[in-house]
């Protein structure tokens, strides 16, 4: 079964009182400076939280939420990721090629936000010393951004980030803090070697089109969101769609997904297929498994989906083979001395990969092209030195000869494998012979 590994930085810190205990000298980790690592209910760090509440089906008391922008909190997240990510990658890289899909992805953040999954009642700190069953029960109003109907939080993170230090906290302030938190984790995971198509964030939104959806988008990862009310059809989630329009990531994920409509096979199948209908959606992670583990309809729908022939992806591959282009002619390979602006190639490189240790089969043109086109050393053909004779045709001889026919044979095999032949158009000295080859109408 493929693994989708959650490296959440929000809910792990009960074992790090050295980061959050700022108020109790009798308990481990006490340090008044820890106020800087937790959220506050005003611009004053004296109003740091000692407690918060979470309602995932039932209300429970939680530790104070982390100040997402605190340097010490960030360093602690980094420290653990530097430990865990290499373990994941070592395992993944050791898998044989036909099992590489077993790493579905690595996820950073967990509905990263402020004030929803850690909310705070008025005078909440005073409640810490009283029995939990006396806590208020009315909970948050999740759609009322930015305070969600309760005490406004976010002052610590917004102030530490330098976004605002006084006045009213806005929805945009809180979304920006969540965005920076997830981008920072994604950047580190990327630096540690997690490729973008295996790296997801975990964003969320509770009010239609709220700005927080956009916080899941960054240049290092694919965005991901929770889907509950729109699990039946994510294309109707306007906040997600707006965020996707601004994402250049190859994929996105329904990283926390649970369909809660009618418990029939058809309804479940429809929800799964509508979620996967977006060509960029690569992942559904179904949560609250215990709620459906005995649900025959859900299982039957999943089995039917898995049994259906998965469409085989046939990407379009474009090879740009330039004639007489020197390594240093492209700016991104030679930013100091390159004389020709190459903005488009530089953009391609910035979004992809540069190769800086390349080798050519030959120092001259036609044999090196033969090798590039066929994946075979040119010296296995009669082209033992020099280039294919261009003037041979004028002398009544066939240009290219056996070398060109070998290229053609290789391309024909390639066509059998891929149902397409890469069109060749160039001064390759191999192309004229390809066009003339009997029975071939494509090259």
């Amino acid at each position, binding site marked *: 079964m493929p693994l989708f590994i959650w490296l959440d930085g929000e809910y792990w810190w009960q074992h790090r009182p050295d980061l959050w205990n700022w108020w109790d000298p009798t308990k481990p980790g006490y340090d008044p400076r820890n106020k800087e690592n937790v959220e506050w209910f005003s611009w004053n760090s004296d109003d740091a939280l000692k407690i918060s509440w979470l309602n995932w089906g039932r209300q429970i008391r939680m530790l104070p939420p982390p100040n997402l922008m605190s340097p010490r909190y960030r360093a602690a997240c980094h420290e653990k990721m530097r430990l865990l990510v290499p373990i994941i990658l070592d395992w993944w*890289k050791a898998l044989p*090629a036909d099992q590489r899909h077993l790493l579905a992805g690595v996820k950073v953040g967990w509905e990263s936000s402020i004030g929803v999954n850690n909310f705070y009642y008025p005078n909440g700190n005073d409640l810490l010393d009283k029995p939990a069953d006396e806590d208020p029960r009315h909970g948050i109003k999740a759609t009322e951004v930015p305070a969600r109907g309760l005490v406004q939080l976010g002052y610590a993170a917004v102030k530490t980030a330098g976004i605002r230090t006084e006045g009213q906290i806005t929805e945009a302030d809180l979304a920006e803090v969540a965005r920076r938190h997830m981008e920072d984790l994604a950047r580190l995971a990327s630096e540690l*070697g*997690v*490729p973008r*198509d295996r790296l997801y964030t975990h964003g969320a939104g509770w009010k239609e089109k709220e700005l927080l959806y956009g916080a899941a988008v960054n240049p290092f990862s694919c965005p991901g969101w929770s889907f509950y009310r729109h699990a039946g059809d994510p294309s109707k989630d306007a906040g997600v769609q707006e965020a996707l329009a601004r994402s250049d990531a190859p994929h996105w994920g329904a990283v926390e997904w649970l369909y809660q409509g009618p418990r029939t096979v058809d309804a479940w199948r429809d929800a799964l297929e509508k979620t996967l209908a977006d060509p960029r959606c690569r992942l559904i992670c179904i949560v609250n498994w215990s709620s459906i583990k005995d649900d025959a309809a859900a299982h039957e729908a999943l089995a039917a989906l898995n049994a259906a022939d998965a469409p*085989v992806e*046939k*990407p379009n*591959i474009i*090879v740009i083979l330039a004639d007489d282009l020197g390594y240093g002619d492209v700016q991104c390979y030679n930013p100091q001395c390159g004389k020709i602006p190459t903005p488009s190639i530089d953009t391609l490189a910035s979004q992809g*990969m540069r190769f800086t240790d390349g*080798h*050519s*089969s*030959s*120092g*001259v043109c036609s*044999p090196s092209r033969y*090798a*590039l086109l*066929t*994946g*075979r*050393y*040119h*010296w*296995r*053909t*009669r082209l*033992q*030195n*020099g*280039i294919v004779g261009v003037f041979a045709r004028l002398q009544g001889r066939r240009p290219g000869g*056996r070398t060109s026919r*070998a290229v053609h044979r*290789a391309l024909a*095999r*390639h066509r059998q*494998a*891929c149902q397409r032949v890469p069109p060749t158009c160039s001064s390759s000295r191999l192309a004229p012979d390809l066009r003339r080859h009997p029975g071939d109408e494509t090259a």
Partner: protein
Amino acid sequence: MLRTFADILGTKLPDNAGEDSFSLLPLLRGEDKPIRANAVSASSGGTPAVRLGNWKYIPAPGSGGWGTGGDQAQPVQLYNLADDLGETNNLAAAEPGKVAEMKTLLEMLITAGRSSPGAAQTNDVKVVRYPRAAGRNNTAKTAK
């Protein structure tokens, strides 16, 4: 490129295609392990050069082409590119064991008809060997 594309498309190449092609897909996916153990680069005049790790072996003197570079003093050239990227210090005489190893590697790459894993293949012609034997015909037609 050929094996990279086949890998992306999830197809297998037949034994007689892409005999010297390796898939770069692991690199594109972010891995950093080297893909090839060796590579042959030929000069315009046809002289091969074999790379194995940091070692480069050229079974002839000089540049093999239009240039004037390369050591002319010894019949073959061996460079350690780790500390001599400019190929100024010919170690052929000093490292006879390495020369023999590289010579064997080149001969194996020629006779196997391929450098990628798979069943041995035939070359289209008898490949010219270096160092060149005096009087040898360059374009012998029999494949070996």
